[in-house]
């Protein structure tokens, strides 16, 4: 019996990989995503590989602050004040990717625990959670993030906290609905009949089954979170930030956008390409876990 399920899992995995890798655009998305991750890792652990000494700060050049067009010295040109755009983008990817990961995973963990608890316990707790999440859904997420971040003080940390606060209700609702359907399934009934404790059922039986769809949701959300994160930085959430961040980087060139459009276009492309890659990858992953699309 044990053996058969192991084998089943194995063949299932192979089929999943087959489905994923037969989708060319999804694979392309994954390759781009991995390139971003590699860049972020290099910047974190050995930035000198890419010729960067301090990835935590922009390197200003006030001698020649006006944006320069792309040239052999600056392949993507420079932005105000004399920042090498290519280097700045490579640095900023680490910051954007890191913070976005933190936000999405943080939101997903909080949301998943609350969602499973509410759905499994049900009754008043469930109702309470639904009304509670309603409150967070009642304000447009960008406005909510601004308000929460503002109340906490304008900094990167409060921006991350604000976005986690904005994002966890989505995951709470999502895992709740997933749990409600899993709760009715045979293996949970069987575990109950075998006398497993509630905590054990929740975390041993339900949580692992909600994971695949939540992971897909994470990968899809990563694209939007990077966008929102950059947008907040772009509208000037953090005063005088000297941190490489793609939205902030784009806002530096905003005054020159008519004469030097590359100052905004290249940081923007970096974000769009990232969001595009995770969306493509997420779509591919969704095909893998959705049995309807699989056949």
């Amino acid at each position, binding site marked *: 019996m044990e053996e058969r399920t192991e084998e089943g899992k194995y063949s299932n995995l192979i089929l999943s990989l087959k489905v994923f890798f037969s989708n060319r655009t999804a694979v392309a998305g994954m390759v781009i995503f991995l390139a971003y991750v590699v860049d972020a890792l290099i910047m974190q652990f050995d930035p000198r590989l890419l010729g960067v000494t301090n990835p935590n700060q922009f390197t200003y050049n006030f001698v020649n602050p006006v944006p320069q067009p792309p040239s052999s010295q600056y392949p993507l040109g420079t932005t105000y004040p004399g920042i090498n755009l290519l280097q700045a983008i490579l640095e900023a990817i680490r910051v954007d990717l890191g913070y976005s990961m933190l936000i999405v995973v943080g939101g997903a963990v909080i949301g998943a625990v609350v969602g499973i608890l509410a759905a499994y316990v049900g009754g008043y707790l469930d109702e309470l959670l639904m*009304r*509670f999440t*309603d*409150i*967070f*859904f*009642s*304000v*447009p*997420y*960008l*406005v*909510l993030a*601004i*308000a*929460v971040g*503002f*109340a*906490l003080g*304008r900094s990167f940390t409060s921006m991350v906290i604000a976005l986690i606060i904005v994002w966890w209700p989505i995951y709470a609702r999502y895992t709740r609905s997933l749990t409600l359907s899993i709760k009715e399934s045979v293996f949970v009934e069987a575990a109950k009949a075998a006398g497993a404790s509630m905590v054990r059922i929740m975390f041993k039986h339900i949580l692992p089954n909600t994971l695949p769809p939540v992971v897909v949701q994470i990968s899809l959300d990563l*694209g939007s979170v*990077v*966008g*929102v994160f*950059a*947008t907040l930085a*772009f*509208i*000037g*959430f953090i005063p005088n930030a000297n941190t490489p961040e793609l*939205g902030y980087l*784009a806002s530096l060139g905003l005054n020159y*956008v*008519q004469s030097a*459009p590359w100052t*905004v*276009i290249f940081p*923007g492309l970096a*974000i*769009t390409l990232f*969001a*595009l890659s995770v*969306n*493509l990858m997420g779509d591919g992953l969704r095909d893998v876990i959705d049995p309807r699309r699989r056949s």
Partner: protein
Amino acid sequence: MISIKLWVYVLRRILILIPTLIGLTLLVFVLVHIQGNNLILAEYINPRLTGQARELEIQRLTQEFHLDQPVYVQYFYWLGQVLTGNLGYTNTPIYSGPVTTAITLFLPNTVVLSLFAALLIWLIGIPLGVFSAVNRDSPADQGIRVFSFTLYSMPIYLIAIALILLLGVYLNVLPFSGEVSPQMVAGLSWFRDGISYPTHVLLIDAILHGDYAVAWNAFLHLIMPSLTLALAVMAGIIRILRASMLEVLEQDYIRLARAKGVPERVVNNLHARRNAMLPVVTSFGYTVAGLLGGVVVVESVFDFPGIGYWTTQALLNNDIGGIMASTLLFGIVLVLTTLILDLVYAVVDPRIRY
């Protein structure tokens, strides 16, 4: 009989709003109190007061809001003030004074902008989604898919800048800053200090005063911000609509419609589209949330004087009054819009009433 049931549904749906709205005020209250009394004082003190007068005002406010009492007591006093329309002061470069006045100045512009964007979504997004599904795998469909997927991945400020560069700078066909060209309104009797009267929406006021040249100019200024908003929101709608249309086209009732000889045009646009719209309408809550959130960015990129512009100005100038009032306002607008859309849904889908 059906209409009675519909009314019961409407009533029930409105009742559900009450806890949400209470929760919304709680949320704003918590945010205002997260730093002790500093923020609430900053919100309600008239920024023009200084020195002794300011001290006296602080004392008066402490008493009025019962700031020396436990937090949950404070909530009710604060709520009382909010319900009577006292939302404090805002102090930003674009407007300085009572929040309630600021709202009457900025909200109408945002409403017009959003409605215009919604119209564009309706006129462009929905036909594109239907067309894309009906002509599945055709070059046009592939193009629409790439287009919507890319738009979907772009942060909204980037869409705005792309449009500015394309339509504003290179083609130079549309203005992209403010609500009107300054020289157009110089010396007009109904336009003072950047504020138009009586509705505060320049386009409407200009029409009311018969100033059609100004109205046309204001209309041109409206196109780019609303197009940006529309494109940002449209991307998601096209994707959902295409997917649901493809699913609907496989249904038995579509086959029956063909079996009874209904023309293809009617099969697609009536039989299939009406059903395919249902998931789109369900996701309208998120759409509207995205639209309203997008307003913040779009208005600040285009310097369009609406609530969103005010919000970012408040943020940049550390103005708590503006931030909290706009949070509350955006919340109320979103909640009411979702209510309206839910009711529309009930009318569109006959199954929902029961």
